């Protein structure tokens, strides 16, 4: 698993990249009450703002970590946005994308480096 400085986690799964935010980020955001996800089929460029997370405190953007196409989104978050707080690393995933350029993956952190960053 890889981590971005924006507190996203990226997991490779059957040639796709699954993206969510870390438990640390979810805790910092507070109780999450709404997640706006991109539409399936959208072509995105790295650093596009593609997810909006609303907590009881504020709205935050999540950036596309790679170029590619959104192939699946976590529809369950529409009715249960708090899943991001309760299960950030598994059930609280946001979207799966088919990357067109995997090279930025080399620049992202491994778990040890991410843990060091948030310490």
């Amino acid at each position: 698993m890889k981590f971005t400085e924006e507190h996203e986690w990226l997991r490779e799964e059957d040639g796709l990249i699954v993206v969510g935010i870390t438990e640390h980020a979810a805790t910092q955001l507070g109780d999450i009450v709404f997640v706006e996800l991109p539409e399936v089929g959208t072509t995105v460029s790295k650093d596009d703002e593609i997810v909006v997370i609303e907590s009881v405190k504020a709205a935050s953007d999540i950036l596309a970590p790679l170029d590619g196409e959104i192939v699946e989104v976590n529809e369950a978050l529409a009715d249960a946005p708090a899943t991001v707080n309760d299960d950030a690393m598994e059930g609280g995933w946001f979207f799966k994308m088919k990357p067109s350029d995997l090279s930025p993956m080399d620049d992202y952190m491994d778990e040890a480096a991410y843990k060091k960053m948030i310490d």
Partner: protein
Amino acid sequence: MSALQHTALHKLHLELGAKMVPFAGYDMPVQYPLGVMKEHQHTREKAGLFDVSHMGQVVVQGDSYAQAALALETLLPVDILDLAENRQRYGFFTNDAGGIEDDLMLVNRGDHVFIVVNAACKVADIARVKAALEPKVTVTELTDRALLALQGPAAEAVLSKLDTKAAQMRFMDVATLKLDGIEVWASRSGYTGEDGYEISVPAEYAEALARTLLAHEDVAPIGLGARDALRLEAGLCLYGHDIDATTSPIEAALTWAIQKTRRPGGARAGGYPGASIIEDHLANGAPRKRVGLRPEGRAPMREGVELFATQTSAEPIGTITSGGFGPTVNGPVAMGYVTGDSAKPGTVIYGALRGKRLPLTVTQLPFIAANFKR
């Protein structure tokens, strides 16, 4: 920037694990480990303890209560003279443009008027009252007192265990209570839409009193985050957001707080800053009105979102002044100003959110029924 001030409970907030933020020049708890959502629900179901010591507690003293009250009436469109002893009333300072300089609570404490003003406005409020009314009255900020709020359906049971007089108070009554040996001034009021008390206590005893109240199993400490969501659901204005120097009390739907005696035809009509403009709004209607708004769907719409009559209309009809997620409503809630016919409950209007126009329904305030003991 000068250093943040601390309230008498600062050490306790840190001990309780609060996340602290700067607010109106003070280092204040925005939330405790329970989190905003659970703190909100705890207040609605049991009782929450809030530190509101950053607010200004001010004594306005004249030769008599009546003299101080009449002097203050030159600055507020509120009937202060006829307020009964040990009763509290909501009011606001106005300006020459008919706008609101601050909103406040006023108490008749026998021989003086006791007022509680917003933290961010207290320096300006005190300067304004002094400039206008001294030497007829003296204006003294009580910097040696803290202010706690105990809010929620369990508040009466918690407080009356310490002094049975607490249970005899009705909404907006004020009394001197003795809580665990500490003499306090309590009012049966608050800023959550729940039954509860605001308790003015000498700063040196504030921490001991807070610990006594928190020792009750039904009481949890609540931060400013939940306080904001609670007051929004209750339809209560936040100064600097829902009301300010440019909003008239009529536009702000606070007409109820201007008693008949201060309106045209009343015994003490007018005589406060901006009276002619406010009287014009009273007689002919205000150009815009503060309303409740329920966004459809789940996406919160926050302060600053522009409002439109239709999905395509070019000119906005108003702006959201407070908005967020209402944990008790279990959905997004907001307040804002709209013009003309759009203020009618049931009207569907549109908010511009991230490039889309999403529908909201104009809704009666409050969003949740008030739970006061009248």
